[in-house]
């Protein structure tokens, strides 16, 4: 269950190949890629800086994966999250899950992403025409994570 925080971009195809290459029991790989948009809350976004809290970030992501394993039977997972300066079109985050059948992979991937949004210490600072601004947390993200507790 690797977790990587990095400034460098990542190759989705290579990451998925590496995640599943040694296990012939895998029948499904579900993945999610988050990317930088050029617009947020009606303002043009020229770029964003992603900050995290080293040490806690890895711990928080491992905890999310442990929670996912307690709920679904899947083989392996991978989380990559970039930090530093990013521009529109750049990839930010990658989550992949391998399992025997698609249901577990889809659900675990969705769960990991929802809790990454609410529980992992990352912060975005956007560059807009009116200056730099820290993003506010979205109520919809809390609702998305809360859904899994029902």
């Amino acid at each position, binding site marked *: 269950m690797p977790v990587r925080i990095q400034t460098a971009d990542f190759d989705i195809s290579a990451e998925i190949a590496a995640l599943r290459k040694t296990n012939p029991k895998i029948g499904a790989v579900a993945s999610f890629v*988050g990317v930088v948009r050029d617009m947020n809350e009606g303002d043009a976004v020229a770029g964003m800086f*992603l*900050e*995290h*809290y080293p*040490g*806690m970030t890895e*711990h928080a992501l491992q905890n999310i994966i442990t929670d996912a394993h307690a709920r679904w039977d899947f083989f392996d997972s991978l989380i990559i*999250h970039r930090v530093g300066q990013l521009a529109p079109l750049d990839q*930010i*985050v990658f989550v992949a899950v391998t399992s025997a059948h698609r249901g577990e992979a889809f659900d675990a991937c969705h769960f990991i*992403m929802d809790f*990454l*949004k*609410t*529980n*992992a*210490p*990352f*912060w*975005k*600072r956007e560059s807009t025409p009116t200056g730099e601004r*820290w*993003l*506010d*947390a*979205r109520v919809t993200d809390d609702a998305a994570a809360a859904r899994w507790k029902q």
Partner: protein
Amino acid sequence: MIKVVYLARLRDALGTSSEQIPAAQTVADLLIILRNRGGVWAEELAEGKAFKVAVNHALANPATALKSGDEVALLPPVTGG
């Protein structure tokens, strides 16, 4: 000494990224010490403000006990992903 770390928007608002506080019994005690500075400290760390506290990289609550050498972090609402 307890190391206190301020992250992201809170670091910018408070104008400092980290400091050493001589002693505090609990997270609640530490927050009182910081709020008692007044001004932006009282404002940003007021009761009901949306921030979380981590002690040694794990989320904590007001009753969490503190000891010398701990690292306490004040985290604004997270916005990753």
